[in-house]
């Protein structure tokens, strides 16, 4: 039988199963911790840093933190909120994000977080990187301009043989996502859709598929991100 532990978030006493991921445990207790690289059901990576919280006073990513008895968590100090807003702004300035023409507009998590954090003009210099749009794959389009290198696709997408389809290439500010021509060769429409859905932004799109749901009626148009957990 699972044992429950008691801990506090922002002073509120919470209960969760021992060893549960802090992001999920907070959610069950009605507290929203914003995430971007995290995705339910796949191993966490702690790379976007947006879910950084203070655990017993020390900064830690909530997606890689497991709850233990008696821990005190703070999720929204002014410094943390400012930090999150900065990360969102940095991501916009790092890539080339032209929201109005993107198929993911309205269901993009980056865009939705920007709304939640009231991002207007980024306070960081735009890098305007020169990036490719890759369209050689029969079922997928990879728009590197929009990729935020969250690695969800790398960690979460597997073909029928359990092999990865995506991997990082290079390092630093030059990292790119590569698609394996072999392991991605015969993917099903369902897997292609899964990859597109898993991508938080519009960097993985399905070919010959688009605008099924009109702009204005998409996921976050209906319900702002996180508002199902906490206003």
């Amino acid at each position, binding site marked *: 039988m699972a044992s429950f532990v008691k801990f506090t978030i922002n002073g509120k006493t919470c209960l969760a199963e021992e060893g549960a991921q802090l992001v999920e445990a907070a959610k069950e207790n009605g507290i929203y911790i914003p995430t971007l690289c995290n995705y339910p059901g796949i191993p*966490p*990576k*702690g*790379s*976007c*840093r*947006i879910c*950084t919280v203070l655990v017993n006073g020390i*900064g830690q*990513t909530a997606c*890689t933190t497991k709850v233990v008895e008696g821990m005190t968590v703070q999720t929204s100090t002014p*410094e943390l909120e*400012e*930090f999150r807003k*900065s*990360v969102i702004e*940095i*991501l916009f*300035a*790092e890539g080339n994000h032209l929201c109005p023409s993107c198929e993911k507009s309205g269901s993009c998590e980056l865009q939705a977080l920007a709304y939640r954090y009231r991002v207007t003009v980024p*306070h*960081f*210099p735009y*890098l305007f990187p020169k990036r490719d749009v890759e369209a050689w794959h029969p079922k997928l389009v990879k728009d590197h301009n929009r990729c*935020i*290198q969250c*690695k969800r696709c790398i960690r979460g997408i597997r073909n029928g043989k359990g*092999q*990865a*389809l*995506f*991997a*990082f*290439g*290079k*390092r*630093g*500010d*030059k*990292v790119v996502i*590569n*698609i*394996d*021509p*072999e*392991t991605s060769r015969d993917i099903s429409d369902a897997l292609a859709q899964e990859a597109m859905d898993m991508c938080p932004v519009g960097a993985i799109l399905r070919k010959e598929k688009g605008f099924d749901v009109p702009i204005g009626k998409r996921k976050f148009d209906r319900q702002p991100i996180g508002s199902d957990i906490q206003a």
Partner: protein
Amino acid sequence: MDKIVTAVIKKYGGDETRLMDILIDIQDELGCLSHETTAHIAKALGIPQVDVEQTISFYHFFAREPRGKFTVYLNDSVVAEFCGRAAVQAAFEAAAGCQFGAVSRDGVIGLFHTACIGMSDQEPAALINGQVFTKLTPARAQELVAGMRAGQTLEELKGKKYGDGENANPRVRALVENHIRRRGVMVFDAYQPGAALRKVVTMSSGEIIAMVKAASVRGRGGAGFPTGMKWEFARKAPGDVKYIFCNADEGEPGTFKDRVILTEHPQLVFEGMAIAGYAVGARHGILYVRNEYRYLRAYLEHVLAEMREKTLLGAIIAGKAGFHFDIKLQFGAGAYVCGEESALIESAEGKRGEPRDRPPFPVEKGYLQKPTVVNNVETLCSVVKVLLHGAEWYNRLGTEESKGTKVLSVSGDCERPGIYEVAWGFSVNDILKMAGAHATQAVQVGGPSGSCIGPAEFGRVLAYEDLATGGSLIIIGQQRDLLKDVVLNFTKFFRDESCGSCVPCRALTGMAQIVVERIIAGHGSAQDVANLQAWAAIRKRNRCGLGQTALNPIVTTIRNFRPLYDARLYKGDERFEPGFDLAAAVKDYEAAVASA
């Protein structure tokens, strides 16, 4: 190609965790790791090709295309620039007939930049096909290129004037000098290999750890973590299989002490690893050495073989039944971040050197998910001496919170760059005097990730409680342009060396570089300086030390050399946006008009 790939993979038992070794060996044979070769490796290992590529493309020294019969990697660190690297680069380019980043048309010479190669005491220096060429001049560059074209071998290019000490060992034959300017008792005095091990086997592992704790030995790799505590965690961690890693990645620009220790006293380091193995209950040791020091390979392998022969390694060490410990070498392939202990472990597992999230710490789940101790080269040397002479002896050296000695790598604008082993507690002024530094503008303490201090702080002492340092001091003379020659170079270094995982590390460093370049160009505003300072808060939320310290060169110079920034800020009409550079903004347009 097929045959070579198959043979190498067979040599490593088709084990994908040995991918680094596999790639290094195959590149040695084939000169590069082409698309075709990669596909073949992936197939033979039964893993996706993109997975092989993600490891290859992470490391600076893995080539996707041929990089020339002779590949020149010229160091572009700050100290190399001080010593005249630009002229050497120009001479190489003129003689070879190609620019850096390319291979000459005849395929003989490839010219490439590389980050600090651990030779700051003898710059400008380059690696040519794995061998180190030091103190280069434009004339020497010309001579080398001529020799390459004339069909000389690498040995002929080197000549016979080998360096001092073991650099002249027939298994090393390096042109490198040790430059040991001051010997201390911890690392650089005479010692009897095996003496400590023979004493250790009469003690229990608990007693050893107690002694290391009593001496309060702290890690010399930079973080200063108590070594005894680290060993105790690993000893108590459940599991039969445990590992001892020695971290010889030494990538911090300006640091070269581990190179000299490994050249002169590898036995001491290996003995320290064996002692750690005994204390922790580990049978396997791995010395992770940066690729830049691969010229020491045959020598280190030989020392290991000798130690096995003397039963200082292997089975029944020093006559103690049940004490088994052996060491293998693992080379990197050019990535500073691999010095971070969890990235080091990832790399040794054949992966990209991306630091891991903690917890779990390596002492709980490290190499191959087993409890692993990672210690710096110098830390392990200190431990050997503690076990030989006792905790009390060790505690007599140093300061209140920093016991023992520190091996310093001193470089830059001074008469005697080199290695100084001093007790903790020496002041920066003391070091400057010993090194023969005059008219010093600034000292970079602890490398780019440390801090840049001015004369007002030269009275501070090197100690964990004051100026903590992994051991490098770069002396910056008054003739240098601190922002352009130093801060910009360091910032670019961190940008290139980020693993690319964390958003604020991957992108913010390059953004800071843009702002610093703007300030240097005279288009900066006071707001730019304020922004750079504010970004420090964002930086500390990165996963590892690299991202956390990447803006230190900027932040510490703003703190200590503010007038240098203020003097360069835009002083024109304040109604306009100073950050806007009209010439740069219309550059493409002008080019288009010009070509039309």
